[in-house]
């Protein structure tokens, strides 16, 4: 760009004016967009507040009341609840019946109830992620534009995965709860089906960005579709696949807690009961356990993902 030191000519004036007009127009658009967003936000707040059972400003002074039942009379009860140790406050009510939940494995050795429930929730997440991975990998190769064996097949698989992704998990869980009885199996089916769709989408987007030269090389020596996918494409995408699968494990642990709360078993159900009945010590023990588990899984998965694909693992949605 050259700067003219002479007096600005008419053309430069016009350019500057046009530039200024453009800037002010852009500013106007920005202001309008932000204004619209704020208006929508306040309208939504009003709507949410009116539709709610308790209203925001009525309930706000009572927030601390609600915290007060959470504080146990004896802080040691939190540990006792967590490890199923008898409490001196036990009066036979459900609030302090900690030892009842012990799951005996071997003689006097037991797993505390909450750890067993947490294990169920984590197992649900792991098994359903595995189901998702097993189906998503072949689907993703069929759905990728550059690798698909047939365009019609690609469209069918893509739509199918979209449907699985968008279908409310809770409906699948409810449907299968009526068939295989309520419990973790229905949750596995629901979360597993959803994972197929979610992982499949991420996987085929990775597949569409691969380097095609290895594929062409194998094509040149007469490899068929399976051989090309296995030896040219899979090695390129596997680290990314694993990274997204680990991310999915994090999401699925949360999903399985929530599905658990609506009848899928595991720790979610217990937490919901405990909060709705106002059992302070039990709730704190459950929250502590759930929080720690999710935190550990998140950190471990983040570490593993960083090892697998580097910083790339953390660029989402951009």
């Amino acid at each position, binding site marked *: 760009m050259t700067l003219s030191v002479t007096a600005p000519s008419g053309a430069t004036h016009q350019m500057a004016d046009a530039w200024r007009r453009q800037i002010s127009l852009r500013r106007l658009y920005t202001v309008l967009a932000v204004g619209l967003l704020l208006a929508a*936000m306040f309208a939504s707040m009003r709507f949410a507040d009116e539709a*709610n*059972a*308790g209203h925001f400003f009525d309930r706000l002074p009572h927030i601390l009341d609600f915290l007060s039942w959470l504080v146990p009379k004896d802080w040691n009860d939190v540990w006792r609840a967590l490890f199923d140790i008898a409490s001196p406050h036990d009066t036979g009510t459900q609030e302090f019946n900690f030892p009842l939940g012990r799951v005996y494995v071997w003689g006097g050795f037991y797993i505390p109830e909450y750890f067993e429930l947490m294990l*169920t929730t984590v197992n649900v997440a792991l098994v359903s992620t595995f189901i998702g991975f097993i189906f998503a990998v072949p689907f993703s190769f069929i759905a990728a534009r550059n690798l698909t064996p047939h365009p019609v097949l690609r469209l069918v698989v893509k739509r199918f995965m979209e449907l699985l992704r968008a279908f409310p998990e809770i409906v699948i869980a409810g449907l299968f709860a009526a068939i295989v009885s309520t419990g973790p199996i229905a949750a596995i089916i629901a979360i597993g089906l959803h994972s197929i769709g979610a992982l499949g989408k991420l996987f085929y987007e990775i597949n569409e960005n691969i380097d095609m030269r290895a594929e062409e090389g194998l094509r040149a020596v007469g490899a068929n579709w399976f051989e090309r996918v296995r030896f040219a494409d899979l090695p390129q995408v596997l680290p990314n696949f694993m990274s997204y699968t680990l991310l999915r494990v994090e999401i699925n642990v949360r999903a399985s807690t*929530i599905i658990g*709360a609506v009848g899928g078993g595991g720790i979610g159900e217990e937490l919901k009961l405990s909060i709705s009945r106002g059992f302070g010590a039990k709730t704190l023990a459950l929250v502590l356990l759930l929080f720690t588990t999710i*935190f550990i899984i998140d950190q471990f998965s983040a570490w593993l993902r960083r090892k697998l694909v580097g910083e790339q693992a953390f660029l*989402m949605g951009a």
Partner: protein
Amino acid sequence: MATMTADEIRSIEERYPQVFQRPLYKRFAPLFLFVGILLYLIYALWFFSLPQVLRESRWERLPLFLSQWVSYDLQPEFRLDQPEITPKYPRFSALGENPNPDWVIKNAEGTFSVLIDGPGKSVTFDKSKATIVANGETVPVSLTDGKPVISGPVPDWITAHDDEVVAKMGFAGEVRVTVDRVKVRKRFLGWANFVFDTRSPFFGKSAGEVVSLIVSGPELKPGTSNLALAGDNIWNNAQWQHGDVWTKLLQTIVMAFLGTLLGGIVAFPLAFFAARNITPNGLLSQVLKRFFDFMRSVDMLIWALFFTRAFGPGPLAGSAAIFFTEIGTLGKTYSESLENIDDKPREGIKSTGANGLLVQRYGVMPEVIPVFISQTLYQWESNTRGATIIGAVGAGGIGLKLWEAMRTNSNWANVFYMVLLTLAVVFIFDNISNFLRRRLSRTIHDYNRIQAEQG
């Protein structure tokens, strides 16, 4: 292709030791991984006692439930122990108060015929005998001996119990005959009374009749226009509850929108303090990052249960739960993208003597705002899906309604209606978000290109 000599093979092996002589643990890693996963799956089989669950599951219910998604049935009952046989329909049957369907025929000789699927699948009966026709076979059932007796061979689609004969006719329905009553279930494809319920004055009228009533008919309810009446009748349809369903759907949308937006607004300033390259204070950055992790790890479910207790069930609790989780998620993603920015624009602005705030405004924001918006849209999209589920624990929206409709195992058509609406919402919002994000990524792309061109 020419064959390689042993020397050539050896020389290649020597040149690439990292390929041909990998350490043992690396060579067998896939095998170990495979065996590990296999062992875990066997453990999971045992843990969930899968064989037992599968043995006890009732898969025959699946096609039944799925068929109920898109069909409804009518169940007329005929008492044979009354002086005169008359069809009786359950209360709130889809036919309204004075049912007179053309598939229930009173014959001249005093018998009744019910056509379940034309004359090919039907039952004809009087007080002394019933004749069931299906699959090309005619089965007479005598009712005079105090229990139903089939004369002749019993086909496999009929089950003869001691006091009842059950004839299953597939999707079309079934017939149950005892000595004192005949019960028919006839299944129809479609959704019954989707627009007007049986109490509405518009019930049973064709679309043309309804339109002409609305346009020029006399007022059906004095003081209200027919258009308002029709709208009110549709909105308050007792069977489908359109008004309630759509309101709950809007609640779900609002929960996701409000929670994500507020989360973004709070996370935005915090992310600047959490990004290590922007905030020199390492302690503050660490504290904020752990705070984000905390908000994320205290799951959306826990927040939803707490806020449901604090505010009562409803969308306010749901919005608050999404809001708290999103502070963590968006705070984390925002600060991570801030740490990945190019430092040169900031240095440029700093060199002009601008203060801290101006450096962020002109040196950082132009680069990250499109990325932030894109990340927020992505979360909005995924929260729209997530809001359905947390609704079911009491946080408002369509989730709770879905869950209630499913608990009874009888209202699958309503469930399907709500599922279709939810799917439509998710598809629409996915597309809006994808469209906006594509536009934004073009902006990001252009920005990078211009930067690259200028060196």
